[in-house]
């Protein structure tokens, strides 16, 4: 093999760089889910908590399309419970604390959903704006 020294050195550097995130985070604290303020007067979300945690964004997208585009405004969950499809009237009726619920995880995961560019969080109403 020609230039084996250069190629091998290059490979080692490449492997080091590509695995850098693993080296860098070695020994640091692992990811802790943030402390959320859960609704007090409700024990169970519309679907199991774990499922909601993974899929709430997909569910909200489907809710949006069904409600706005198809005119189907009632959701029947796997447990057979019916509810109105509405972020403001249904979701945030229980999850009244956007800052200590929604934002906590979104900030930690560095995602910025644009739901509240238009939709009104309970805090905004309470603050008079």
């Amino acid at each position, binding site marked *: 093999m020609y230039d084996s020294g250069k190629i091998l050195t290059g490979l080692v550097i490449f492997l080091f760089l590509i695995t850098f995130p693993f080296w860098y985070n070695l020994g640091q604290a692992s990811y802790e889910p943030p402390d959320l303020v859960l609704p007090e007067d409700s024990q169970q979300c519309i679907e199991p908590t774990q499922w909601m945690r993974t899929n709430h964004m997909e569910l909200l997208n489907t809710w949006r399309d069904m409600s706005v585009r198809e005119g189907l405004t*009632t959701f029947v969950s796997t447990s057979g419970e019916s509810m109105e499809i509405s972020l403001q009237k249904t979701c945030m009726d229980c999850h009244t604390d956007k800052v200590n619920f929604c934002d906590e995880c979104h900030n930690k995961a560095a995602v910025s959903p644009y739901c509240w560019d238009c939709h009104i969080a309970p805090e905004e109403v309470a603050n008079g704006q």
Partner: protein
Amino acid sequence: MDNNRRTFLKIAGFSVALGLGGGIPLSLQAYTPADVEYVPTNAQITGKRWGMVIDTRKFTKPEDFQRVIEACHQTHNVPDIQGNEEIKWIWTDHFEQVFPSSSNPYLAERYEQQDFLLLCNHCNTPPCVRVCPTKATFQRPDGIVMMDFHRCIGCRYCMAGCPYGSRSFNFSDPKPYVQNLNPDFPARMRGVVEKCTFCAARLEQGQMPACVEASNGGLIFGDLSDPDSEIREVLRENFTIRRKVELGTNPCVFYIV
């Protein structure tokens, strides 16, 4: 490896079978819970072709207009912006603006002085729907020309397409201009076009449009396709005109003048 046509086809066939048999059901399962349902709300008021009659004889004083406009704006978080960035869902104008082709220089004084209530005409052949590149505005089976604010990219083709000026663009964030936010309805963001939705959300909850409720009988809302409906009764008994019918948009808002 001996790469020939036979082995290639075998591998390809096996991969497709694996994808169809394993991958797709698995990924679907991850995104949709097994047995949820989306159904219309029980109380929903349904119709085949919604329309409205505006009885201009019942709108004489400024309060008559104000009451109706307030009701709509409060329900839908319509911002109160003065000047050329005004957001219009339901508003007023003079006869020569409302019915330009029926206007003449010797108009009866009564019409010259009077204001007329304006809103989206929910046309049967809506030009705004034709020009929308993202289908953010679309026509529902019941005739309502609906806006999906989520999908609007703010190109404003619909504003150019609408001959009635029924559409308004949010040049800046409208939230600060809304007096009392209604927590039951969203606001809009900068860069989105908005207009009257014939209160589609209220109809789905079994309520009449907000303006109709506040109008004390000045506005009649109903199903144009049902010959026994109140609106058809009113249309039978009164002479009505519509705005700019010569354009072929077939508007569904009728005026008793």
